[in-house]
């Protein structure tokens, strides 16, 4: 059993990804396989960077692990995403131009999160915020995704 919450600060590009890199180490300590820790790391990294780049006041990255699942939850309180289908389209990005120099804006982050999850849920309301929950099933510990 492991439960960690990281708070992610808006605009804190410099430290972007530290929580996710650290998370991977914690998961390995917890006995999670290299393969699954890596998938969790990818999900967390994409979520963490989105909080930094888009969430007005940052947000939280919450991770809970038990024998069955790794659950990764991201929450922020705005601005929210107007059109979720559009946001989930490969290549769609509103990342500012300067972010490209740092390696962001492929418009692949949400898709990477979904592809690395066994179950993926996203809900968002303009003016309220965005909530994403990703589950990795530890009982099907294989290379299939």
């Amino acid at each position, binding site marked *: 059993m492991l439960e960690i919450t990281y708070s992610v600060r808006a605009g804190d590009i410099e430290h972007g990804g530290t929580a996710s890199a650290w998370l991977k180490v914690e998961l390995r300590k917890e006995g999670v396989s290299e393969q699954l820790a890596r998938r969790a790391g990818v999900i967390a990294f994409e979520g963490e960077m989105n909080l930094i780049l888009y969430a007005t006041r940052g947000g939280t990255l919450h991770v809970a692990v038990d024998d069955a699942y790794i659950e990764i939850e991201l929450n922020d309180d705005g601005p929210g995403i107007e059109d979720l289908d559009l946001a989930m389209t490969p290549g769609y990005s509103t990342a500012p131009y300067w972010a*490209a120099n740092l*390696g962001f804006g492929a*418009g692949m982050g949400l898709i*990477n999160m979904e592809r690395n999850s066994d179950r993926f849920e996203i809900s968002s309301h303009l003016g309220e915020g965005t909530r994403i929950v990703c589950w990795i099933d530890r009982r099907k510990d294989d290379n299939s995704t």
Partner: protein
Amino acid sequence: MKFADVMELLDGEILEGVDVSEMIIDRAYAADLLSDVLALTDERTTLITGTISPQVIRVADILNVIAIIFVRGKRPPKSVVTYAQRVGIPVMCTKKTMFESCGLLYANGVRPCKNRPVSGPGSGCSK
């Protein structure tokens, strides 16, 4: 091929002092955008990139990338090199372009790592 031979081939400079004499580079992936890098699935690959932000090292660490080659003469700041050293990933820089670096490595037997291109109706190449 050995990391040291890659350095010679690309006329590159190794930026930190991990002992890499026996490290073998047999697969590689090249991209500048991190989400494209994160879409690669194969482990133990080498990353070729022109992006030098600290996130490159974090992504490489998460993915278990074995080495990073920075192209187009880009050289990451000292703090980024130190971070790579701390997580045990050797880094090299070369003045060659990404295209030329990839071509030279390919011609010398380095192969693509497995990755998952964009797919699905309306998005992605249909072939």
